C-alpha cells in the first residue's frame, strides 16, 4: 500500500484521499439555439481542464462540449456515483475519458479493475440514452519518460 492510500483507506480496492481533492464541471448551450447539437462530455483531470477550452472552441457550432474535471480517479471512493451524476445530467453523444495521472500510485491491477467498472458505466449510459461513442484515454506521459502503460 502506498503512503497516500494509507492515510485514508476506504476499502481494499479504493485509494485514500489526496490532501486536496477538487472538482469542476461546466455545461454549455443548455437552453439557447445550439441546444440540439450533439453533446460531448470530457472527463478528466487538470490536463483535461487545460485543454477543454481549446476543444470547446474548436467544436463551437458542431457540438456542445461539457466537462467534468477533478482529482478523482477510478479508484476513488464514490467515483462511479460522481460519474453517474454527470451522465445523468444530459444525454451525451460522445464521452472522452482521460483520467489516469492521479492513479499513478494506484496498484495497476486495482486501477484496471476499477477502470473496467467506469467503462461499463459508460456503456450503460450509452445504452440508456441515444447511442453514444466513448473515446477513452488511459493516461498521458509525464515529463520523465516512462514505459507506455500496458493495455
Amino acid at each position, binding site marked *: 500500500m502506498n503512503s497516500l492510500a494509507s492515510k485514508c483507506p476506504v476499502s481494499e480496492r479504493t485509494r485514500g484521499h489526496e490532501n486536496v481533492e477538487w472538482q469542476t464541471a461546466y455545461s454549455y448551450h443548455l437552453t439557447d439555439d445550439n441546444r440540439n447539437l450533439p453533446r460531448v462530455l470530457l472527463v478528466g483531470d487538470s490536463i483535461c481542464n487545460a*485543454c477543454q477550452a481549446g476543444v470547446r472552441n474548436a467544436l463551437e457550432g458542431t457540438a456542445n462540449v461539457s466537462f467534468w474535471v477533478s482529482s478523482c480517479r477510478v479508484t476513488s471512493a464514490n467515483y462511479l456515483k460522481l460519474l453517474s451524476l454527470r451522465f445523468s445530467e*444530459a444525454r451525451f453523444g*460522445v464521452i472522452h475519458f482521460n483520467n489516469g495521472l492521479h492513479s499513478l500510485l494506484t496498484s495497476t491491477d486495482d486501477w484496471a479493475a476499477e477502470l473496467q467498472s467506469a467503462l461499463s458505466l459508460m456503456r450503460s449510459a450509452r445504452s440508456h440514452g441515444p447511442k453514444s*461513442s466513448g473515446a477513452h484515454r488511459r493516461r498521458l506521459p509525464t515529463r520523465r519518460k516512462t514505459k507506455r502503460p500496458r493495455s
Partner: protein
Amino acid sequence: MVEELGGITTDALFALLDPLDRTSHWTDTYHHTPETVAIEAAHVATAVVAAIGRAVVEPDGDGS
C-alpha cells in the same frame, strides 16, 4: 490515431505526446506548455468529431 479497447474507441494521446521533448513541452512533471495544450486540444477535437460521426445522436427537443 485510435484503437479499440473492449468496444471503446481509444484516443491515442499518449502516442501523440510521448515523443515530444520533455523540456520544451512540459512545465512540470505532469503539465504541458500552452503550445502543447493547443496541440492536445486539436487532437481531442478531431477525435471527438470522428466519434460523433460514428455515434447515432438523437437529441431531444429540449436539448437534454
